[in-house]
């Protein structure tokens, strides 16, 4: 006796169409993410930070910071922040393409993230006089949040 195949065939077709949709959708999303995006003026990477210090103080500090050494690749604009909130610092990195941007973002190695960290360090230095360090961040890569071994002696 022949089996009634219609419902299972229909279900399979729906399944294949759904799977194809997921694959195509994922490919579109991935392609969009992998494409390096440019700002209006052609710079691929822009990061900005507001520093609670006067414009002139930031300008002087900038000349003495590692950010100042990147002049060839980095355009930095300083302007007074509204409401007396200090200085807005806009950094544009002359890098139009980034290979595997989604993957780099995932591991924190996207040039935009690295630029962001540089700006954050600069802001911290100016606002607090130092750089915040956690028990894990003093090491490269992921590391358990606990004191390091070089201080292994115990307190009494």
């Amino acid at each position, binding site marked *: 006796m022949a089996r009634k195949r219609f419902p299972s065939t229909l279900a399979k077709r729906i399944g294949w169409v759904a799977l194809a949709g997921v694959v195509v959708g994922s490919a579109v999303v991935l392609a969009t993410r992998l494409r390096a995006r440019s700002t209006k003026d052609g710079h691929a990477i822009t990061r900005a930070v*507001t520093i*609670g210090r006067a414009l002139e103080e930031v300008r002087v500090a900038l000349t003495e910071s590692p950010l100042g050494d990147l002049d060839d690749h980095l355009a930095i604009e300083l302007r007074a922040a509204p409401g007396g*909130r*200090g200085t807005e610092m806009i950094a544009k990195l002359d890098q139009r393409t980034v290979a595997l941007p989604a993957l780099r*973002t*995932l591991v*924190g190695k996207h040039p935009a*993230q690295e630029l*962001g*960290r540089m700006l*954050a360090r600069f*802001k*911290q230095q100016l*606002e*607090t*006089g*130092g*750089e*915040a*360090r*956690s*028990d*894990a*961040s*003093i090491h490269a890569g*992921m*590391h*358990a*949040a*606990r*004191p*390091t*071994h*070089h*201080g*292994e*002696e*115990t*307190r009494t």
Partner: protein
Amino acid sequence: MKAVCWNGKKKVQVEQVPDPQILDPRDAIVRVTSTAICGSDLHLYNGLIPTMEKGDILGHEFMGEVVEVGAAVQKLAIGDRVVVPFPIACGACGACKAELFSLCENTNPNAWIAEAMWGHSPAGLFGYSHALGGYAGGQAEYVRVPFADVGPIVVPSGLRDEQVLFLSDIFPTGYMGAAMCSISRGDVVAVWGCGPVGQFAIASALMLGAERVIAIDRFDYRLEMARTHAGATDIIDYEKVDVKEALLELTGGRGPDACIDAVGMEAHGHGLVYAYDRLKQGLMLESDRPLALRQAILSCKNGGTVSVIGVYGGFIDKFPMGSLMNRGLTLRAGQCHVHKYLRPLLARIERGEIDPSFVVTHRLSLDDAADGYDTFLHKQDECMKVVMTAA
């Protein structure tokens, strides 16, 4: 030293680890005399907070004695008895100057992780994942406290540890939850969740002028504590009655003027909606189960305020945005800006207006931390709050 370390989902153990050292002239080292397990530590315990590493030292509610200070520390001295706020704040950035200390712009060295998850980074926190800084926590014999001139508050010797320990988190968190409701005299406030934060939200709502405070939970002992200690005027057991109907009855059909979600990402419930959220969370299609939040929004009176102090980590589904928008609700949320509330709340304790130690049900040695987590998670032995001592 001994420290409570996270070693995976539902795995914590006390390990011998190196003592903390001064890493920055602004640091202090504190010998921990009392530390507590927070309800939000259970999210870490349950493996729901990403970016934990095996070996991370847990704990963000702690107090103790200053045993070492960095060269730049001016306000603390060796021997001072201090309570330490759970957010780490620099005191100098725009957020700190605006008294939004849990949003400090300078204390999360791993800000890039938080930015990828949330758009912007909040402050670094003690013992609460690498996305929030990778700082060792205070469930240990010693802890390094960065920006020691900004956070810790010196407490008088006349007050017991258990009276002031909760200034580190849950008392100010509950208070901020009530403060965000902008309570006026005669207001009715409903509080979802009668864990320790919920208890302090209830007590705080009354301090701030609420006329009636309605406590919502499913455990009798929590509801009883809400009534007898925190001062709730009414209680609702959500496993026995329909919460929205009960609230409408208690408020003459208006709904509460303000609703506080002190539950967060691991809400319980029953019926199809709860099954739906469990399934979606299990399949990682949503990170948090927002049953209490949905209920709070749908129950709140037109034009009322919903205040969220329960911890959420990521994304939720079926958020009733239409209700929020069309009924003109105000939604406020945040990790507590503890530093802002330390002194006024310490003053209330000193004046005898409140003794926060009423929430403590379990006192353990640090060595028994694993049992403490398990007992707290399963609400065994009517567990409300576990306090541990290193001695």
